[in-house]
């Protein structure tokens, strides 16, 4: 059996897109409707098994980017990869995610990442069209819808990123 590895993964995105809820769903398999903003960074740990090897994911849930609190890029130091999160019901958060990705790449170079369009369960309010999905996918991005409420796409997104950063 291969020795376990430990990797730092960051979650980035605009405020209230559901980053903390995605981590809670992934780590504790729970979801809460209550919105509690993250200040600074919230750290959690989850171990996934990949091909007979344990990968300890150290999850850094970073405070959302917005006009009030700009992302402290130093939090990303030593990250092996990151998940960009946007709210599918708020198109402006997709712009924030795209901007964050450019800044991360500028400061830390190309790192494995995926884009999650969260809150997929709110179908009636969904505002991101398939055309945007296709554009990003054609650019080589890993883009998938997710729902912290239902769990849709959550495990898969973390497992996929874990496989890519585990080496």
């Amino acid at each position, binding site marked *: 059996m291969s020795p376990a590895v*430990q*990797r*730092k993964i960051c979650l980035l995105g605009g*405020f*209230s897109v559901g980053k903390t809820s995605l981590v809670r769903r992934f780590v504790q398999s729970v979801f809460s409707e209550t*919105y*509690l*903003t*993250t*200040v*600074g*960074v*919230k*750290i*959690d*740990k989850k171990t996934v098994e990949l091909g007979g090897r344990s990968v*300890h994911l*150290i999850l850094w849930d970073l405070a*959302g980017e*917005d*006009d*009030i*609190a700009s992302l*402290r890029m*130093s*939090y990303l*130091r*030593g*990250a*092996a990869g990151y998940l960009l999160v946007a709210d599918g019901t*708020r198109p*402006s958060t997709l712009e924030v995610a795209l901007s964050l990705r450019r800044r991360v790449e500028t400061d830390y170079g190309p790192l494995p990442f995926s884009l999650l369009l969260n809150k997929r369960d709110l179908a009636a309010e969904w505002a991101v069209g398939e055309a945007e999905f296709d554009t990003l996918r054609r650019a080589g991005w890993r883009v998938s819808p997710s729902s912290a409420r239902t769990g849709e796409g959550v495990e898969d997104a973390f497992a996929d990123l874990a496989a890519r950063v585990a080496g």
Partner: protein
Amino acid sequence: MDLPERIGARLQALAYRERKAAWLRLGTDSILMRAGGHLEAYGLGELRLGEAALDQAWFLEGLLPVTGGPQIVPSLELPGGRVADLHLDPDADGVWVVLLDATAERDAVRRVQQKAYEMTLLQEKEALLNRRLEASNAALLATQRDLEASRAALLDAHEKLQAQAAELASWNRTLEERVAAQLGEIERMARLKRFLAPPLAELILSSGDERILESHRRDIAALFCDLRGFTAFAEAAEPEEVMELLRAYHRALVPLIQSFEGTLDRFVGDGVLVLFNDPLPCLDPALRAVRLAVAMRDAVAALAASWRRRGHALGFGVGIAQGFATLGQIGFEGRFDYSAIGTVVNAASRLCEAAKDGQILVTARVADAVAPLAELVELGPLSVKGLSRPLSAVDVTALKSDAGAPASPAVAAGR
């Protein structure tokens, strides 16, 4: 630091106690060498010295080794809920890791930030709702414009329909007028055909001059004929049989009347009155009347033979007179007849009464007119009912050869 030793010690004790200070000493190979302070507060109560720090203080993943000078990772919330400011202070033999509690500060910041974010979310929702409202308004306005356009188109179509309806009504009126005119013509034609040969009736109609039908006096030949023994037959026979016989009788006579261009005045049962020289004038009314009478006699003789075979003994007699009579339409709207009134009609009728089967009795004037063309037998004065003077009756027994052909076409209508 410009602090008296006692104050410095005091502040140190305060920071250590109030901010739950905890520390780790890592070697250059990130092995945990020593640790102290409020370690339990950060979930680090069971540390194993001499082992890898990253396996125990896993929040340090990615942060080691520390390069450059001291670093601070602020507001780090650990799984237990404790928030710490993480200080990394490297030196030549390793790195000092210091954790200082920042939960209270984080909570204070979060309270403000939470309000601000909630407000922003509300504004975003409001903006979204406004956009949807505007989109709905725009859609409604578009629908309203479409409806107005449809309404205008409908009004236009309605006006066109009304114009077409008015045009149709006008055409209808024209059509009704034409139909009424044609009906009137048909009615007049029907009326005329009752007593005129169809070609003559059409002639009058095409000339458009109906003054010919107004009351007037004219010298005419009147022919009256009927069946001998008809009254007795009608009393004895079934009505259906009587009617059938009369139909055959009339079918035989009417074409003859028309071919001789006589004016059929009336049928009265088996009695038939035919006039000549009115309303269309002719040069030889007496001769035409006699020729018709002979043709009638021959036709009825053929019919009488078949009647006899069925046991009905019926004969045929004719009376012809010539003289002035008053002629014209008589009757009222819806029931007009063209008729002649005068002694000449009575004379013809009485002569007919007097005639035996197969006899054609004519007045002396008629006999004079046809004498060159007919075989005549004078019967002498004949007293008849309704006339003050006896009639000189002459029996036309036959026509001389070449005298029985139908008359030449009538002269054009008009007097």
